[in-house]
């Protein structure tokens, strides 16, 4: 959908720079988007195209790095990892972890953004809470893992509080028990990641015109209706963009999982990312790891595909 007034205005212009007269208007219009994207594409093509292609290539060899003369084996690596029970477990864990994370990131992010945007609160209070709510974002994965391991240690403060409040009478082994490990981990990831949605949605909320809300008030709409029919539709492009990114990123989350549970106990928190890491750096199976990476790429592309369909509908 071209920008409407453009044609009429510039086509009329007999004046223009030498460049504009030399290169036809049509060519410029065709080239323009690519010029806008040139820096991005230059960087990504130069730095990423080769490594990504190499990973794809490695996935079709029997082993690399360890093996001086690798042999082409086609899809054998993919078959091997799908036959591995641990891999299948990791897919299940990853889907659970990712879905719950994204859903709660969105829920908490939207909730906090709405709270912070509320006109009912004092501006100073708003400023203070805006800072508090962004705190989880400021820390690197190592520290988040360490702090939460401290908090959720069987002798740690969370258990102490739960026992004092009478919610439970024994110390729960949050990260050491197969029953609770993945939920504890998901909770930590939700804590660490909601600010992404919150900050983006807060910014988006600023763009919703007041006039719409006022008109809705006049029509007698209540708060929830305004939320559902005005706010959320307006925020949809942002929500969809971030949800896609969060989905892709969360699927790959590695340091947080690795440093808290290492994929355990047994395989309770095994994710595709920890599985891939172990393949590469403790089993030295770099080709299998590449195959696993390609599987992740395909999963992510599914999400990307839905995003692009959504964009097309908007266009």
């Amino acid at each position, binding site marked *: 959908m071209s920008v409407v007034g453009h044609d009429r205005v510039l086509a009329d212009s007999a004046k223009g720079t030498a460049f504009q007269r030399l290169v036809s208007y049509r060519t410029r219009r065709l080239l323009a988007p690519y010029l806008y994207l040139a820096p991005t594409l230059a960087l990504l093509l130069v730095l990423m195209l080769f490594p990504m292609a190499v990973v794809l290539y490695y996935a079709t060899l029997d082993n690399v790095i360890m093996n001086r003369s690798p042999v082409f084996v086609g899809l054998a690596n993919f078959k091997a990892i799908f036959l591995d029970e641990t891999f299948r477990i990791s897919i299940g864990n990853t889907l659970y972890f990712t879905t719950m994370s994204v859903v709660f990131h969105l829920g908490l992010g939207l909730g906090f953004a709405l709270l912070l945007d509320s006109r009912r609160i004092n501006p100073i209070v708003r400023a203070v809470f805006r800072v508090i709510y962004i705190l989880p974002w400021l820390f690197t994965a190592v520290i988040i893992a360490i702090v939460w391991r401290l908090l959720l240690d069987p002798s740690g403060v969370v258990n102490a509080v739960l026992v004092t409040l009478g919610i439970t009478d024994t110390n729960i082994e949050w990260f050491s028990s197969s029953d609770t490990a993945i939920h504890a981990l998901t909770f930590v990831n939700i804590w660490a990641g909601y600010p992404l949605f919150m900050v983006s949605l807060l910014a988006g909320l600023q763009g919703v015109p007041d006039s719409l809300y*006022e008109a*809705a008030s006049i029509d007698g709409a209540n708060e929830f209706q305004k939320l559902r029919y005005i706010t959320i539709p307006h925020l949809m492009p942002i929500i969809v963009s971030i949800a896609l990114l969060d989905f*892709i990123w969360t699927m790959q989350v590695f340091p947080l999982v690795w440093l808290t549970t290492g994929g355990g106990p047994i395989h309770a928190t095994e994710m595709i990312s920890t599985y891939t890491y172990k393949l590469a750096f403790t089993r030295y199976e770099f080709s299998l790891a590449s195959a696993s990476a390609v599987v992740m790429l395909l999963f992510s592309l599914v999400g990307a595909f839905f995003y692009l369909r959504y964009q097309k509908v908007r266009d």
Partner: protein
Amino acid sequence: MPGTRRQRSGRRWDLPTVLTYLALLVGAIFAGFPVLWMLVSSVKSNTEIFASPPTLLPETFTIEAYTHIFGDAEKMRFFFNSYLVAGAVTLLTLLVAILGGYTFSRHSFRFKKPLSLFIISTQTVPPITLLIPYFGIVVAFGLYDTYLALILTYMVFTLPYAILMMTGYFNTLPRELDEAVLMDGGSSFTALWRVIVPVSIPGIVATGVYTFLLAWNEFLFALTLTKSMDMRTVPIGIQLLMGQHAYEWNEMMAMSVLGSLPILVLYLCVQRYFLSGMTAGSLKD
């Protein structure tokens, strides 16, 4: 809650307001308690950090963790490096992403979908598998152990996100804004910088904050692409405190706290940009 945007002269303590404050408080405990714990741990002795029952107020209050860090030029250098790299990445990424996001939002062109897919796909390959070939390229370009390597690498990680976000934000702005400029004889480039960008400041700031944090918190590539101590960054500094046999818990916490303070200050400064509205004349805060 939306719908009550006009500023009130006095606050009414009705039920929704009370509930709002209550929700804010619960949210703050959820968000802030672990950070509080981190802060408290940074002034405890290493032993007390593992004491049971855990103590909220340190019994062995000590600032040894902080003095260790401030007294060590090597460690202070980590902070400098992290800020330099993160700052450069943020500025450059925002510039490039504004351009890219604008064209995805406003123009239609033949390779739009494939390029969009390509840009997103660079995010989909797990970094751990990319590491060896990517590092090979960096070495081939002679960028091993340089700031440029880190800056370019982080741009590669943040650009897809930033472009996606900018596209999303720009998509929420009606085309009439662009058209107003075009009717007056401007180009779409002018439309972008004169109208779209000023109105998108909240989105740009939000994207910038995340870009900064991503570059700031990254560990794996920072470790691989640098080798000399004066090029290392804060996440590496923190992990260097995780010894083979024992960790320096309070120092790790202190380093994290110190690292986040300037970002916090920065955030406090840019916070108000989250409030600039699209339509002039609407009174917000």
